[in-house]
């Protein structure tokens, strides 16, 4: 015996619309951004659990945000990173690992 599933598209749309209306009404009344607040809680929780991944992402972001002149090539960027990471041994080690991994990925 097969169980028949009844999916209603108008029903789904109505539900979504009601949810949105409720969210907006709550935001208007309480002044609280419910969805973004909830995402912040989830994000913070996730970040606390996966702090190592978060640190790794921040390291990658740091490299990405090193300002690059239009005339400079990768050696200039490496030199700049080298100069800026003096007295920062652990970070320098991570940068070296990242650069090595990037070069190996390019070779492969």
């Amino acid at each position: 015996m097969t169980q028949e599933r009844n999916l209603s598209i108008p029903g789904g749309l109505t539900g979504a619309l009601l949810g949105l209306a409720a969210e907006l009404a709550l935001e208007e009344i309480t002044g609280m951004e419910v969805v973004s607040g909830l995402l912040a809680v989830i994000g913070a929780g996730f970040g606390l659990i996966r702090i190592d991944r978060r640190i790794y992402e921040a390291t990658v972001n740091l490299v990405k945000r090193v300002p690059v002149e239009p005339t400079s090539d990768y050696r200039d960027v490496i030199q700049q990173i080298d100069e800026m990471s003096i007295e920062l041994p652990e970070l320098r080690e991570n940068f070296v690992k990242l650069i090595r991994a990037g070069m190996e990925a390019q070779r492969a």
Partner: protein
Amino acid sequence: MVGLNSLFKLFRKTFAPKFEGRGFLPRRYYLYRALEALDEDDIDEAVRMITLAGLDKKKSARWRLVCQQVIFRCRILVSVHEKQMDQINTELEIFGKTEDLRNLYLRLQEVERKARDILKNYELQLLEQLSESTASVAQPS
């Protein structure tokens, strides 16, 4: 769900400033907040959070790494401000013929200098904390 959000907001608005400022919360929380601030280039907040995360005598490897990340970003931003100061200097020599323009360039230069000095101050502050943590690693008590 709404209840959880309200509780979180209430916590952030009422208790968090008291707890956050005293360093009662888990160290990971402060590191997470420091990384968040670093992503937004809010160096002041990142330094505050790093300082709170490093209130323990024994600082973790994670703390050292995040601290170094903030120092690195400070140095990058300092170099950006210095380049802008050079640019302003060049333009001042070329276009600063009238008194008004000259004053405008000088004011811009002053803003850049202040920003650079604030960042350098943060860098020194963090380097000091970092060297303290190195010293505590070198001399186990």
